[in-house]
C-alpha cells in the first residue's frame, strides 16, 4: 500500500500562519484512512524524519513570507545538500528532514513537495486574511493533483493575486 504523509506547519494564534492547519483540517476530512496521514504541528522537528522514512509521498504545507498574500508556490524537495551543521534542533525545514530520514533510516519518500501560500499577516488572530482564504480552495486542488500523481518542478506555477 502506498502511503502519503502530509505535514502541515503553523501557529493557530498567528493569523495567516495557520493556513496550513486549515488545509490539514480539510484534507483530514477528505482523505480519512491509513493511506493518507495528515500531521499538523506548530513546528517541524527532527522526530518527523522517522514517519517520513515510511511514506512514499510527502507533502509539506506552510505559510510563506517570500510571496505576496495568496500566492501559491509548489516545488519538489530533495534531501538538503548543504552543511549538515545547519540543522536546527527545535525546528527544521523539509530538506533537512529528508536528509535526516535518509541518514537515520536509509529511506526517503519517492516524491516530496513543499506547498506554500503567501501570507498577509502573522499578527495575533484566529482568522485568515481574505487573500489567503481565497487561495485555500486552489491550494487544495493542487494537493489533490499531487495525490493523483501530478509532479511539479521547483518553480512558481500560479499567482492568485498581484502584489
Amino acid at each position, binding site marked *: 500500500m502506498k502511503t502519503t504523509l502530509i505535514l502541515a506547519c503553523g501557529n493557530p494564534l498567528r493569523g495567516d500562519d495557520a493556513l496550513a492547519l486549515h488545509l490539514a483540517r480539510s484534507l483530514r476530512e477528505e482523505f480519512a484512512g491509513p493511506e493518507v496521514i495528515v500531521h499538523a504541528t*506548530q513546528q517541524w*522537528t*527532527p*522526530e518527523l*524524519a*522517522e514517519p517520513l522514512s515510511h511514506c512514499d509521498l510527502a507533502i509539506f504545507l506552510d505559510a510563506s513570507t517570500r510571496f505576496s498574500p495568496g500566492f501559491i508556490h509548489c516545488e519538489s524537495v530533495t534531501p538538503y545538500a548543504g552543511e549538515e*551543521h545547519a*540543522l536546527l534542533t*527545535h525546528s527544521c525545514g523539509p530538506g533537512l528532514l529528508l536528509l535526516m530520514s535518509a541518514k*537515520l533510516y536509509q529511506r526517503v519518500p519517492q516524491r516530496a513537495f513543499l506547498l506554500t501560500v503567501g501570507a498577509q499577516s502573522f499578527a495575533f488572530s484566529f482568522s485568515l486574511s481574505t487573500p489567503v482564504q481565497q487561495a485555500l480552495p486552489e491550494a487544495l486542488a493542487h494537493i489533490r493533483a499531487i495525490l493523483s500523481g501530478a509532479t511539479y518542478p521547483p518553480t512558481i506555477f500560479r499567482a492568485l493575486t498581484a502584489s
Partner: protein
Amino acid sequence: MRRVLNLAQIIQSHALSFFYLSSPDLLLGMDADPKDRNIFGVLRTNPELARGGIRLRQFGQQVIETLAGKRIHPRWVVPGGVNEPLSQKNRDSLLSALPEVIRIANDALQFFKNNVVENFREEIRTFAAFPTLFMGLITADGRAGYYEGHIRFTDEHGQIVTDELLPAEYPKFLGEAVEPFTFMKFPYYLPLGYPDGIYRVGPLARLNIVDRWETPLAKQEWVEFRALQRHAVLSSFHYHYARLIEILYCLEHMQEFLEDPDILNTHVRSTASLNNLEGVGAAEAPRGTLIHHYRVDEQGLITWANLIVATNHNNLAMNRGILQAAKHFVHSDKLTEGMLNRVEAVIRAFDPCLSCSTHADGHMPLHIQLRAPDGRLLDELLRPS
C-alpha cells in the same frame, strides 16, 4: 493524567537536551570540528544512540499529543482537571510502546556510564563543580515531588538545610537580586544573602535532595549515582547523568500510572470558579522548580504576576560555572574553539532555556574577550548572529 503529561514533557525535554544538544560534545569530544559536532556526527559515530534519542523524544511528544491533542501549548489541561478522559485504545497504544523506550533509555544510560564518565574527568571536575545548596519539590515521604509537595533545601554535604517550606511562601525564603548587565534575575536563598545563597535546581538537584527513589530500574541507578561522591553530587556535568536517570524514572512511573485502571476514569474535571484573588503554583519542570505567582481581579483577569523559572534559579550557578571553566581551560593568550565550546557546554549542562542559543547551528551571537591581568586585550572571538 496531568501527572502523565508532566512525565512526558520531562522525557521529551530531557531527550532534546541530551541527545540533540549535548551528545555531540560527549561522543565526538569538546574539541571536535563544529561541522561534525551535531546530530549527524552522532549518527556516524553511534547510529543506535542517535536513533534512540529521536525515538525517546518522539515518544514523549506522542504521549503529549495523545493526551492533550497537540504538543505545544495544549488546551487539554484546565482548572479542575482535564478536558477529556483517556480512551482504552490510546492507553493501550501508549503502554505497548513503553518496553521499547524503557530499553532505549536504559541503553543510553549504560552507554553514558561506560563511555562518557571516564573520558570527561577534567570537565566533571571543572563544570560548575562547587558547593551550593540544592532546591526542589519533595513529597511527604521523601520522594521527588514532580507535581506537588513542599520545598526542601539541602547542602553540599547532603544535609537538609530547611524542609517543608510552602511554595506559596517563597518570598520568605527566596530573594530575587538583579544585576545591571542582564535582564535575568538572580534568585538566592534569603537566609544566606546574596550571592552566598547560591543554589541549584533541576535533575541534579532532584537526585541530590530526595531520600528515596521508587521505580525499579531508576532506583538502582539513583543509588549508584549517589555513590559518585561521598555526599551530594556537586559537578554540574552530572546534570547529563541525572537527566538520563530521570528519563528512565519517568518512563517507569508512566507505566505504573497507565497500568492503573483508574487512568481510564471518565470523571476528569471538577467545576471550579474564582475563589481567590491571589495564588502561587509550583511544580518541577524538566529544568527545575517552576514558581508562578498571580494576582487577579474579580473577573479573574491577571493584574500582577511574578515567575521564577528554572533558568533563573540556576543563574548564579551558571555564571559561576562559566568562570570556573574559563579559569581552568583558558591557559594561553589565544582562545580556541575547544575553550569556547567548553564555556558553552557548561551552560548546556544546566539545559537552560538558553540551550538552543548556545548550540543551535552555531548562530548564537557570542563575543568573548580574553584580557590580561592588567586589562590588555589578548584575544577575542566574535561569532556573529
